[in-house]
């Protein structure tokens, strides 16, 4: 045929000879090459936020001298739980390329419903929590319905939700406006319980199990890939990654054990983040969320029920926000009218974006909620320690957020323009 003469190269099979092919060369140089390519094409991942965290830790440790002490770090991990869980919900909605402005109000309303049911109505506290979380899920379903089925922009639906649910919160709490947590109740323990009442065994056990599980999963995957004739991670790389995780996990465990042991809020937050990350990356449902965030038409053509994915994502994020509201209530000792208002929602969104989840949809991970919230809380705590005014804290956090969004926009642009060939 006349066309085959124009591209003789395509007819001669010469594996890996095409210079445009991305095949990682062995050795350190290969990794350096791949790293440079990822930077160029805007696939930064969690790198900026991890570097930022290290920088923050170094700065505040050198200024205050006790930023890295065990009790301070324990407090930080406890403080990020409530906001962090809301932020995980934010990540889900951001992955769709949408925004949910109601999550702060949903958190407040969920905490209010729980405390009123448990304290004023005398319901079993577990049952009250369950009912409140279902209420939050129903709120999310309502947002999702108006967005996905009726076609109202998510921004407006959830703005209405923000007003309505904070009204509901007020209404449920009634005239007094504050309901204290039950002493030694479930909600009260969310914040101040340490696993095994501070038994150092738990932190060590969890750290070792996490590292062993990660390493085993990596080795098994590499074996399967090699058996299938696919490029797999080298033994050295697996060892390096597992080693890095081991250092982080064991140092964390050691530090926490210096103080009071493994705090429940941290376990819940990390557990929720790991679980949601698994769902997003390893299940068909998660793949559908990314697909809808990347291209609605493509998702629809692939037979994905776009409306169902959207509604379910709004439900998940609302329930996570509700759970976060319970942790905030636990921390402040009561559910009140102000819970979830103010900068709660903005912090949660900022954390997700600082952690590397894209505002434009389809790119991100729930780990960004954890990392981003760590950044925000570290800055807040550090500035508190040097007695900086709240005004300064807001300005610095704002600057960090702007930096993260700029990074997101630039990496999105370079990714678009990195089209090859």
């Amino acid at each position, binding site marked *: *045929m*006349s*066309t*085959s003469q*124009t*591209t003789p190269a*395509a*007819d001669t*099979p010469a594996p890996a000879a*095409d210079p*445009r*092919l*991305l*095949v990682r060369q062995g050795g350190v140089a290969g990794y350096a090459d791949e790293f440079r390519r990822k930077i160029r*094409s805007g696939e930064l991942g969690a790198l900026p936020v991890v570097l930022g965290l290290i920088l923050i830790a170094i700065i505040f440790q050198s200024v205050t001298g006790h930023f890295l002490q065990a009790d301070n770090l324990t407090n930080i991990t406890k403080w990020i739980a409530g906001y962090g869980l809301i932020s995980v919900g934010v990540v889900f909605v951001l992955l769709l390329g949408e925004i949910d402005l109601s999550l702060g109000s949903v958190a407040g309303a969920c905490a209010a419903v729980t405390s009123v049911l448990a304290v004023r109505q005398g319901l079993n506290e577990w049952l009250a929590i369950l009912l409140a979380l279902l209420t939050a899920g129903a709120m999310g379903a309502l947002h999702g319905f108006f967005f996905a089925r009726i076609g109202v922009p998510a921004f407006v639906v959830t703005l209405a939700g923000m007003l309505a649910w904070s009204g509901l919160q007020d209404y449920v709490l009634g005239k007094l406006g504050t309901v204290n947590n039950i002493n030694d109740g479930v909600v009260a323990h969310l914040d101040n319980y340490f696993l095994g009442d501070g038994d150092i065994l738990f932190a060590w056990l969890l750290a070792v199990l996490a590292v062993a599980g990660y390493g085993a999963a990596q080795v098994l*995957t590499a074996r*399967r*890939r090699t058996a*299938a*004739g*696919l490029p797999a991670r080298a033994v050295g790389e697996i060892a390096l990654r597992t080693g890095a995780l081991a250092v982080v996990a064991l140092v964390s465990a050691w530090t926490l054990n210096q103080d009071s042991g493994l705090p429940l809020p941290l376990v819940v937050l990390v557990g929720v983040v790991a679980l949601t990350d698994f769902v997003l990356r*390893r*299940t*068909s449902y998660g*793949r559908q969320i*990314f*697909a809808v*965030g*990347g*291209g609605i*038409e*493509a*998702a629809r*053509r*692939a*037979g*994905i029920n776009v409306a169902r994915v959207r509604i379910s994502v709004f439900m998940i994020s609302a329930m996570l926000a509700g759970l976060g509201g319970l942790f905030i209530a636990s921390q402040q000792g009561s559910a009140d009218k102000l819970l979830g208002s103010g900068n709660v929602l903005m912090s949660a969104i900022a954390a997700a974006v600082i952690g590397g989840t894209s505002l434009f*949809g*389809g*790119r991100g991970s729930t780990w960004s909620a954890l990392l981003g919230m760590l950044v925000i809380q570290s800055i807040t705590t550090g500035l508190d320690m040097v007695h900086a005014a709240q005004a300064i804290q807001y300005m610095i956090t704002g600057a960090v957020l702007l930096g993260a969004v700029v990074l997101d926009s630039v990496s999105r642009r370079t*990714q*678009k323009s*990195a*089209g*090859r*060939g």
Partner: protein
Amino acid sequence: MTGAPVLALRAVSKRFGAVQALTDVDLDVHAGEVVALVGDNGAGKSTLVKTIAGVHPIDEGTITWEGRPVRIGRPQDAQALGIATVYQDLALCDNLDVVANLFLGRELRRRGTLDEVAMERRAKELLDTLSIRIPSVRIPIAALSGGQRQVVAIARALVGDPRIVILDEPTAALGVEQTAQVLDLVERLRQRGLGVILISHNMADVRAVADTVAVLRLGRNNGAFPVAGTTSEEIISAITGATDNAVTRRQARIAEEAK
């Protein structure tokens, strides 16, 4: 082509309100045959393809699949028969990598979770048998060029092992080399024994890869030609539909002057 056609349309008609989009259209597609579907704008090419793909069910006429009459009422019906369609706007997810796009909506699973290893292996096998070259199966679609996206979209249509592939103007937005790559791919589809329906405006592309040219004009058949032994002028006059039109008048005038 010998043997019975895989897909045969007989006297297919389709109306949209007062508009008669298709009238008594016949079309045959054999295994291992590339049928170019040509026609002017509004001739009914897209409508015909959409009736085959199940987007618009036909009003009258019959569709025969491997010798037995079938009804294609929904896109899923067409897919279940083995008809895959690659639309002009590709419909790939920019943020997902090549493997994820190839298997989107029909992921391979292992113990309830995605089986990335099996999917990547099958993706590589598929791309290798089609001699498709892309930098890596693990980079996002956003990082691919237009031609690479087109071949990924075509490969995606092949994941379900179809018998017939419909390509809607696959070379419309491509450069010279990328067009050649896509045409190469069309030939490989034929070698694999698939029937291909190729919609194109580009007569050079049609002549390069097609075995048969089916011409539509104003929603009716206006001839089906074997590409070998038919000139572009004959096809064009069938497309424009008249022996007396701007093109033929000009040719006649030039012939006159040459004498």
